[in-house]
């Protein structure tokens, strides 16, 4: 039985470092190639030595697919392709291809230039890696080779995020990447058609959460920002440069306009302008409302939001600052956090998920004393708020996607083990399908049971469809008969006659003739008629004909009557049938031997 194997190298019962290997129909595919934000050592990248101990990966992978530009999904890509070595195709959507190298470069700068790490990928490596990227369009069926095809679906989550459908023959797998089933202020909702994959590999970041309505969360967020501003405090919102940032910017921009607020809003790093530009050029990837109105008013041209300069952090008075990165693990957001942490008038709002090990994760867990580098500690006095704005599907959304795609098996990644366990139970109960949640390095194998595609001759098919009638009767299935010819790689189903002809074989007729003696005091023709009526009453489902040439035909079996010369009452019945009617012929001969009813 064919099998599909799934092995997470990262994101197995964990969030971060997404990297999942899939073997399907003899093809090996790597889904995402991310880094882990919580580690600074070897554990940062997936363990590629699982694939091969020595050397390059090109021979072992048919393709690599990147679902979206977040570093926990693409951060290890240059390391994998340039340092470990992979020259095959890498697929990602156009926006991902555009934005991914910028974030990688950012990541590289922080790691190498600021932290002084060596043995890390270089700018040139990022460029070389991006040269191997083949852009994907939504819904386009890309033929990776003759057998392997992939198709991308809209995933919401961030600009350019995609789910992928991977198909080899009649086996298929869907990988969701990160997705969002509810449209937000700038992106639409994920969608997939009823593709019935053998396995649906889904993220499960919010496996146990069912979030309240988006509107409530937005109101909450605005209220908290507003209150802090009113009392003269500063609000820090750590974000990633692309994604949530734009959604929250749109939210604050409209709020500021409506309330006529004057406090400045800043956006850190030079990326904003550029980031917004990406949104303008890839506007077809945003939600319907923005797409419809972009000619009149482009939502990504902000009036109230200005670029941030490092010196502004010490300015007196209220302000709102969006700063990168989103988990407070490095960079500008961490610097500003350190400056503002001591004042209880200030507030930090964490709008997204924080990976274990980051400062963001620590303060969200209520830690109030942080150990910083150089043994100093930092007292956290400012208010810490968590607001789930990261666009992941919640439990409801995941169930909704399962209903959309109707997978035969479910596999959870990108979530915490305990939460997965809960969701797994729910899925198995509600859909009665198997649900797996392999840990990193653990392989899940799912056997598939593909049907065999065969070319049937149209003559045979039409013949059967006519016999079946316009309304097939489920109680009385009609069987069809044919000959399957297996030649090289082709499978053809034709009628037996055609098979003989096509193979250049002669037909061999096998016939049987049987004489049955019978005592019947009637004339020959009467006897024949008596046989006819007798058979008619016994064989209800068969065609029985009394032919004028003095024979009775049952299907294609011929029955003749003659009387012996001596005794006119001693009749001899002659039965003749071909091998194709063997069952019936044999039955008839024994039936007639028993005589005719009187």
């Amino acid at each position: 039985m064919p099998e599909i194997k799934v092995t997470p190298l990262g994101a197995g019962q964990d969030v971060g470092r997404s990297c999942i290997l899939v073997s399907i129909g003899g093809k090996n595919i790597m889904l995402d190639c991310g880094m882990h934000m919580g580690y600074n050592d070897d554990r940062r990248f997936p363990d590629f030595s699982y694939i091969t101990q020595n050397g390059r990966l090109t021979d072992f992978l048919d393709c690599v697919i990147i679902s979206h530009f977040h570093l926990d999904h693409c951060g290890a890509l240059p390391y994998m392709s340039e340092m470990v070595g992979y020259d095959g195709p890498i697929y990602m959507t156009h926006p991902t291809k555009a934005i991914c190298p910028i974030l990688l470069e950012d990541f590289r700068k922080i790691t190498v230039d600021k932290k002084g790490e060596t043995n890390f990928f270089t700018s040139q490596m990022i460029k070389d890696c991006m040269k191997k990227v083949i852009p994907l369009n939504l819904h386009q069926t890309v033929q990776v080779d003759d057998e392997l095809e992939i198709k991308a679906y809209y995933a919401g989550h961030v600009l350019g995020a995609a789910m992928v459908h991977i198909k080899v023959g009649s086996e298929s797998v869907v990988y969701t990447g990160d997705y969002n089933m509810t449209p937000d202020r700038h992106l639409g909702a994920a969608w997939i058609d009823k593709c019935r994959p053998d396995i649906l590999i889904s993220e499960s970041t919010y496996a146990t959460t069912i979030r309240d309505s988006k509107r409530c969360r937005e109101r909450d967020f605005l209220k908290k920002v507003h209150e802090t501003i009113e009392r003269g405090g500063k609000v820090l919102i750590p974000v990633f440069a692309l994604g949530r940032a734009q959604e929250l910017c749109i939210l604050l921009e409209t709020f500021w306009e409506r309330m006529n607020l004057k406090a400045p809003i800043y956006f850190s790093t030079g990326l904003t302008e550029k980031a917004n530009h990406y949104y303008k050029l890839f506007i077809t990837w945003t939600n319907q409302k923005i797409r419809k109105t972009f000619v009149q008013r482009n939502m990504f041209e902000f009036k109230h939001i200005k670029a941030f300069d490092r010196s502004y952090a010490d300015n007196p008075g209220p302000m709102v600052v969006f700063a990168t990165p989103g988990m407070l693990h490095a960079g500008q957001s961490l610097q500003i956090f350190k400056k503002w942490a001591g004042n209880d008038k200030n507030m930090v709002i964490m709008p997204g998920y924080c990976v274990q090990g980051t400062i963001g994760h620590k303060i969200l867990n209520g830690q109030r004393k942080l150990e910083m580098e150089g043994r100093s500690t930092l007292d956290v006095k400012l208010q810490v708020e968590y607001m789930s704005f990261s666009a992941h599907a919640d439990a409801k959304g995941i169930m909704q996607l399962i209903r959309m795609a109707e997978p035969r098996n479910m596999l959870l990644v990108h979530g915490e083990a305990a939460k997965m366990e809960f969701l797994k139970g729910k899925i198995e109960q509600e859909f009665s399908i198997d649900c797996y949640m392999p840990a990193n390095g653990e392989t899940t194998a799912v056997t598939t049971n593909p049907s065999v595609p065969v070319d049937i001759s149209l003559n045979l098919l039409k013949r059967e469809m006519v016999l079946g009638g316009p309304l097939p009767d489920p109680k009385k299935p009609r069987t069809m008969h044919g000959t399957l010819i297996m030649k090289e790689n082709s499978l053809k189903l034709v009628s037996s006659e055609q098979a003989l002809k096509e193979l250049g074989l002669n037909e061999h007729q096998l016939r049987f003739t049987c004489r049955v003696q019978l005592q019947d005091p009637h004339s020959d023709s009467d006897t024949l008629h008596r046989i006819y009526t007798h058979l008619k009453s016994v064989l209800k489902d068969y065609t029985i004909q009394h032919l004028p040439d003095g024979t009775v035909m049952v299907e294609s079996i011929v029955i003749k009557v003659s009387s012996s010369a001596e005794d006119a009452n001693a009749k001899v019945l002659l039965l003749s049938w071909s091998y194709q009617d063997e069952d019936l012929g044999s039955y008839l001969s024994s039936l007639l031997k028993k005589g005719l009813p009187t």
Partner: protein
Amino acid sequence: MKLYCLSGHPTLPCNVLKFKSTTIMLDCGLDTTSVLNFLPLPLVHSPRLSKLPGWISKDGSINLEKRELLDLSTIDVILISNYHCMMALPYITEHTGFTGTVYATEPTLQIGRLLMEELVNFMERVPKAQSATCWKNKEIQRMLPGPLKDAVDVWTWKRCYSMQEVNSALSKVQLVGYSQKVELFGAVQVSPLSSGYSLGSSNWIIQSHHEKVSYVSGSSLLTTHPQPMDQSSLKNSDVLILTGLTQMPTANPDGMLGEFCSNLAMTIRAGGNVLVPCYSSGVIYDLLECLYQFIESANLGTTPFYFISPVANSSLEFSQIFAEWLCHNKQTKVYLPEPPFPHAELIQTNKLKHYPSIHGDFSSEFRQPCVVFTGHPSLRFGDVVHFMELWGKSSLNTVIFTEPDFSYLDALAPYQPLAMKCVYCPIDTRLNFHQVSKLLKEVQPLHVVCPEQYTQPPLTQSHRSDLMLELQPPPMPYRRCSVLNLPFRRRYERVYILPELANSLVPSEVKPGVSVATVSAVLQSKDNKHTLQSVPKAPPVAPSKKRKRVMEEPPVTMAPKPLLSGAVPLEAFLATLQKHGITEVKVEETADGHILHLQAEDTLIQLEEDGTHIVCDNNEPLRATLRDLVLRFLQKL
């Protein structure tokens, strides 16, 4: 499989393909050349036009395809290849009982919407107090002057549709991406391919598991802004329907572009104005890009460029957001991120200005000499009418025709006499005959279907045998209203054998490398998908007690025996008989074989090359044994 040809216009095709019980309309182009029979619709009152004797100007009417050929309400889907070929969509989706789906790419939909919106706007802003229809009566038409008298099928000329009809028609469009496979009723798969002609333009593949039809419409191999043409996917077609070749086979687009620029510069330098009647999308992007590079070198930095159309702004904006549909160079710019088309910079630096119409801001900001891009290229309606009236009297000014759809002489007719210079540089980037024959050699379709115009040289250049398609086998020509039987027979269909049944099959080798297995199965057909599954085991018949049955039940299963093949060799068969204790066999030679007389059993076996006949009375066990022995030597199919 049949092809109904509803349009005779080779670049505005409208064909209907019936294939495996699906009815697919390929494009619905709107032939607007009939507007040339009408007088221009001026935006401002024109004393000259209104004083012309005889015929008052009427609404631009539109020529619609022949409808009597088939019931348009039976159309399942409409496939659109580019935005020029969808302009008749509202006529088909709104008034024929059409209930199907239209498939088009996103740029085709968006830009097509803009062009329709523009057309409606052009018509509606100059409402007619009266509209005449009586002239369409054949008796009256016969007495009309000029070309109108000879116009055919005037009763099919329709009034322009309304915006409401446009919106309703476009709401039936389902978006598709290149190489997306769309299943139609499980029977047919259609898939658009990049055709390289305009933003989102596509050729279509229509195929089942065993047959493939390619529909090539408006394709280009030149590198302009759209994604290059996908040629390799057209390979192995049974039939290739070829439409939308260049209308200007003798004009080289690059040369025309050069001529366009030099004429433009010359006029401006001499202090004149340049009028470019054009569509609001398509070649205009290339013209602007060309001018962007040309402006500085030609010292035109201070000359204002105006683009006037109700959809000018939208067209310019939309062009920038379709990165996926652009050529590689433009995609790379988007990655930077920069706008893919340089007209963004022209707008930013105020060199190019766009206005919805000549009214409003334009009238106050208008400076001469200048260059104006505006529609409609037929010169019968739109803002262009005003500029023709305004600039026609001065020989300093120039009108440059770039669109190939209308004869420029006919277009100019109502404006004569004209002092203005007229330059004709038609830019048509679609395939020319040379490129087409190279393409066909490459993709090797079994049959080519094309409009009859392509099978002979153009009327005006009858000696140019290079301006026609010469193929082996010759292409099948079609004309308006013809119905073609496409020359291929379907012989196979895909069916899926369910795993359980597949496992139960017993193949036997009949020849080296060829195996056969007899299949008895239940056929399930659902949504045009066929599956074979094992015959369910009949439930054991409950012994009925009501009536004592004298006889055993007749055999119920209809499972016929397989066909037999091969021959029974005499010697081996005799040896086998012997093994089974049948020793007294008298062999008699006949013309066709042998007769074996089993004397002890009084049974005859007739062995021949292509048949065996067993004559055996009253000894069923023996007959069964003999049967099985014979079967050992035969192959079962």
